[in-house]
């Protein structure tokens, strides 16, 4: 008999499937994938698996992260486990059931090769239920504008580690204005040299100090609170 609490627990543990290498002693035991397949086979409604299995798990992860009982590498594994489960349920749910919270484009400013900051934000956002398009590093203004036109995201997130590259963000915001796309998309910026003041100065909609704050900021910007 499928146990939905087991699904929650495996989301918290970050065990996507039975082969998950995270806890060597548990290899072979069912993970999120097997537990959901079992529940589906037993005719448990997909909506119930989602709301009583997956979502309580990822909500618990959010709480544990907020009070620092879980750290980023653990949260990322939980997010991946959640995504594995959500992908299995998606074909069985009404379109609304697994709708992304929002769509975000991320990339580093032109000339900046420092990948880790925006990748971390991207991974965390995916885990939180956003659709994320990662444009990579050294993204030109033209590439950002083209991506906004094509992907129609809710938010563009840009990062820079260097004072020499951070001005590329201003160029991109200006180019979005010129292309008449600025009003249809929110722009958030981050990275070591970036400050709240700089963000305001270049006309961004928001700034976050770290990945956790970035996630909260983006949720606020798209108007969700979970």
């Amino acid at each position: 008999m499928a146990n939905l609490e087991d699904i929650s627990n495996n989301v918290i543990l970050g065990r996507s499937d039975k082969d998950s290498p995270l806890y060597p002693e548990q290899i072979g035991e069912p993970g999120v994938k097997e537990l959901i397949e079992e529940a589906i086979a037993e005719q448990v409604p997909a909506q119930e698996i989602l709301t009583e299995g997956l979502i309580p798990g990822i909500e618990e992860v959010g709480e544990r992260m907020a009070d620092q009982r879980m750290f980023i590498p653990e949260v990322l594994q939980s997010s991946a486990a959640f995504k594995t489960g959500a992908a299995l349920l998606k074909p069985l749910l009404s379109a609304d059931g697994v709708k992304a919270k929002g769509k975000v484009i991320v990339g580093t400013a032109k000339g900046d090769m420092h990948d880790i900051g925006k990748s971390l934000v991207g991974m965390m956002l995916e885990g939180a239920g956003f659709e994320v398009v990662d444009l990579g590093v050294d993204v030109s203004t033209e590439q950002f504008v083209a991506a906004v036109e094509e992907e129609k995201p809710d938010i563009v997130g840009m990062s820079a580690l260097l004072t020499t590259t951070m001005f590329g963000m201003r160029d991109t915001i200006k180019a979005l204005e010129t292309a008449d796309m600025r009003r249809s998309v929110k722009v958030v910026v981050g990275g070591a040299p970036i400050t709240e003041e700089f963000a305001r100065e270049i006309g961004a909609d928001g700034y976050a100090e770290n990945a956790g704050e970035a996630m909260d900021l983006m949720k606020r910007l798209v108007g969700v609170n979970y």
Partner: protein
Amino acid sequence: MMIQAIDQVRTNAEVAMNENAANDSFEDVAGGDDHPYFRVLNDEKRDRIHAATAEILEHIGVKVTRPEAVEMMSGAGCRVDGDIVRVPDWLLDDAIASAPKQFTLFDREGEPAQYLGSPAVYTHTGYTPLEFFDLETGVRRDYTLDDFRLVARVADALPNVDAIGQPGVVRPSAENPLEVINHLEFEAMVTNSSKPIHTLVASGAILADCLDMAEAVAKANGASSLSEKPFVMPMLNPISPLVYADDTVDKLLISVDRGIPVICGPMPLAGGTSPATLAGTIALSNAESLFGLVMSQVRRKGAPYVMITFAATMDMRTGDVTSGPEGMLMVAGCLEMGHHYRIPIAGGGAYGGRHGILDGDAGRQQMLGALTRSLLRGNAGVSIGAGSSLEAAVLADETFGMLKAMMAGVPVDDETLAVDVIRELGAGSGNYLAHPHTFRHFRAFWEPSTVPRSSYEGWVAQGRKTTDDYVKERLRDIMQNHRPKPVPDSAVGTMQDIIQEARRRAAAGAAA
């Protein structure tokens, strides 16, 4: 006359006391085993880390974004696949063999300042913190060029600080755009201190201009060229994991072509941009450092090169850079690898204090960082928090003085063993105070320069001053009274011309 002569003897003794382990020539500081040191790797671990490093370089490779550099490496025997360059073992060995085991960094006046590759401990101010701890308001704020001048001037005055790391980052403005801001920073450092400069600028083109400025200063001070007596050592930062971007490559090749030593410092963040294990991060950092070494030796055999690392851990709550015992172990491991290759090393990233605040945490972190690096048999530069807090720098100066004294170790010979003196004074009744042997040696004891020793009563009588008070007093004294040696006028003029030319180019570029 008589009194003067006595004072001179005293002064000489005090100078000797402060210099301790230093440093008149390579010969004076040679013989590394005479100095205290520690290791965090044994031979077997060291060999396994080298094997892993060689494997990374030969089979995983490094991404190089400059096609000309990729071609150069290919021509030297590297296996190239697009922008990935893989270094064969033999080429790595050749580069390690051809790199200088030691070289001299000079001061601005052309005097030898650092015997890199010797066991001496050298220190420098911290590199490019983003914010400055304002002395008046006590809050962090953006750097100004005046802060650069001040940091350079204070570092110039601190006897145990041997070099100036680029003190911060001044944000470009309409008045001073990106294209000239590093020039202005460089000028501010050169004109406010005679000490060697580890400079960190944004691009190869900017570095070339800064080296032109330094060239003018070196020549005005009597050198035939900057490369004859280099007082500038550009800092390079490969991007972990395993990327040499355009500016890193350009700065490396320009320096090598002009005969200027470079200092190359990767900054892997364990768990973020490198493995979450100490050994894996040491191997990755080592591979990144050695890749630059190979590139330098391919360009010109014998090009002087210093390995440094800023290996740290990622704070897994926030993704920020953090400092702790793991960072110390990783830096120690990387520097030990440098020792093994006999490539001059420096130790990056000792800690200046939480948010620039001079407190108990700053003190213990500073000592832990500085001690770790000092005990790596010297030649380990130590970053101090001059960038974030001048007060932390002043405290660090005293910390460094203590460590330099300690690193002199325990000299053992007949004179220092003093068995004859012990015999003479015998058991029970001896008084060493009045013995000439004591007179000859006691001045070598370390004396504090900032926080004086006093009795409890003396301390109360002086107003119960805290460490913080003493540090502030000394800092105020330096700020009011220290005047750095000026740069000759001719060089000042040339530097201004170079800055003006850069301004003109920037304006033309903006207009185009």
